[in-house]
C-alpha cells in the first residue's frame, strides 16, 4: 500500500517534469522560435547523429508511403487518361469524317447541271455487296421530284441513272452494270461510241469507228443522244485500246470518271415537270 502510494507520487513527479519539459521545448519546435542556446546546441550536437538517422528513416518511410499513394493515383490517372485518349480518338475520327464529308459536299455543290436540269443531293443508303458495280439505293425518291431515268452524277462525272423510284428512295443503275449503255463522244475527236458496263470496276467502249484516232488517256463524255443523259458529262478515261483484225469498230477499256466503289453522296439531276 505504502509502496503503491510512493510509486504513484513518483509517477506524479515524473509526469510533472515531463510536462514542464514539454512546455519548455514546445517553443523550440515552434516556427517562430528556432534559435537554441549554448547548452541547447551542445545537446543537439550530441543528439545529432541519432537525429539524422531517425530523420533518414522517417524520410524513407514517408517516401515509401508517398510512392504507394502515387501508385494508386497513377493507376487512377492512367485509367482516366486512357478514357480521355479513347474519347479524343473518337472525336478525331468524327471530325475527320465530317471534314471528308464536307469536302465531298463542297465538290458536289460545285457541280453545275446543264439546263433544264436541277440537282437533288442524295446519300447512298444501301448497296448490294454481291452486285457492287451494278446498283445502289439513295435516300431520295418521288417525293423529292426524282423520276425514272434521271441521271445520277458526282462532281467527277457520271454515276448512272435512276431505274426504280419509291416515295423516299430510289435505285440507281450504275454505268458499270451490264444492262447500262451510254452514248459517248471522245472529247478530243468528237467521234461517237457507246460505253457499256461489265459488272467490274471497268467500262467497255464499243462501236467506235475504226478510223477514230483513239488513244490512251482520251476522255469520254456523254453525247446527249438518246435523251437520257445530257450532253457533256464525263463518263471515263480510255485506259487500253483494242483493235481486232477484220473488225469494223475498235473497242477500248475505260476507267469510270467517278470512283464507284466509294460513293457516299451523289446528285440526282431532276427535270422540271414541264420538261419531261
Amino acid at each position, binding site marked *: 500500500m505504502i509502496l503503491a502510494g510512493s510509486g504513484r507520487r513518483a509517477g506524479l*513527479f515524473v509526469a*510533472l*517534469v515531463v510536462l*514542464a*519539459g514539454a*512546455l*519548455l521545448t514546445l*517553443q523550440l519546435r515552434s516556427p517562430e522560435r528556432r534559435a537554441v*542556446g549554448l*547548452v541547447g546546441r551542445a545537446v543537439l550536437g550530441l543528439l545529432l547523429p541519432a537525429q539524422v538517422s531517425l530523420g533518414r528513416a522517417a524520410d524513407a518511410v514517408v517516401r515509401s508511403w508517398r510512392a504507394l499513394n502515387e501508385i494508386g493515383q497513377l493507376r487512377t490517372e492512367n485509367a482516366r487518361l486512357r478514357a480521355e485518349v479513347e474519347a479524343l480518338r473518337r472525336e478525331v475520327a468524327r471530325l475527320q469524317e465530317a471534314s471528308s464529308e464536307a469536302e465531298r459536299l463542297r465538290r458536289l455543290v460545285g457541280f453545275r447541271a446543264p439546263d433544264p436540269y436541277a440537282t437533288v443531293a442524295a446519300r447512298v443508303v444501301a448497296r448490294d455487296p454481291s452486285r457492287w458495280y451494278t446498283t445502289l439505293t439513295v435516300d431520295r425518291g418521288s417525293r423529292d421530284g426524282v423520276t425514272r431515268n434521271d441521271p445520277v452524277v458526282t462532281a467527277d462525272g457520271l454515276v448512272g441513272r435512276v431505274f426504280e423510284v419509291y416515295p423516299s428512295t430510289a435505285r440507281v443503275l450504275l454505268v458499270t452494270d451490264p444492262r447500262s449503255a451510254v452514248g459517248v463522244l471522245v472529247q478530243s475527236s468528237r467521234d461517237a461510241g457507246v460505253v457499256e458496263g461489265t459488272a467490274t470496276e471497268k467500262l467497255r467502249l464499243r462501236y467506235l469507228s475504226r478510223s477514230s484516232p483513239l488513244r490512251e488517256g482520251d476522255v469520254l463524255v456523254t453525247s446527249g443522244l438518246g435523251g437520257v443523259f445530257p450532253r457533256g458529262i464525263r463518263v471515263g478515261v480510255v485506259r487500253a485500246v483494242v483493235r481486232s483484225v477484220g473488225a469494223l469498230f475498235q473497242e477500248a477499256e475505260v476507267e469510270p470518271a467517278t470512283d464507284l466503289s466509294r460513293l457516299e453522296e451523289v446528285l440526282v439531276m431532276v427535270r422540271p415537270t414541264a420538261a419531261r
Partner: protein
Amino acid sequence: MGGAPEPVLVVLLALGLRMEPEGAALLGFLAGLLQDLAGGGALGLFTMSKLWVGFAAGSLARTVVLDSAWAPSAFAVAGTVAARLLELGLSALAGELIPPLPAWARGTAVAACYNGLIAPLVFAGLRRVVRWRGSLRLATSPELRP
C-alpha cells in the same frame, strides 16, 4: 532575472518544508506555471525550476531544522541561488537570452538578499497559520467536546 524579491519562491520554500517532496513539486509546478503565464517569458522555464525547487524543499523537510532565527533566511538565500542557477541552465537550454554573468550574479545576490529578508516573516506567518489550523482542528475534534 533582475534583483527583485520573489515572494512566490519564499512561500514555496516555506510550504515545501512542511510537505512531501512530490506534493511540494506539484505546488512548485503550479506556482511556476502561473509565474510563466504572468511573465510572458519562455513558457515552462519557471515551471521547471520551481518544480525542482519545491521537490528539493520537500526532500529536505526531514533534515532541515528551522529552530534558529537565521535558518529561514539562510534557507531562502540558498533556495534563491539554486532556483536562479536552474533558471540560468534552463534558459541556456531553451535558447533564451542569457544575461552576462556579472549582471546575473548581481541580480541573484540582490534577489537572495531580498528573499532572505522576507523569509523570516513568511516562515513565521506560515507557522502561525499552521498553529491556528491545528488549534482549530483540536477545538472541533469530537474527543475534546464536553
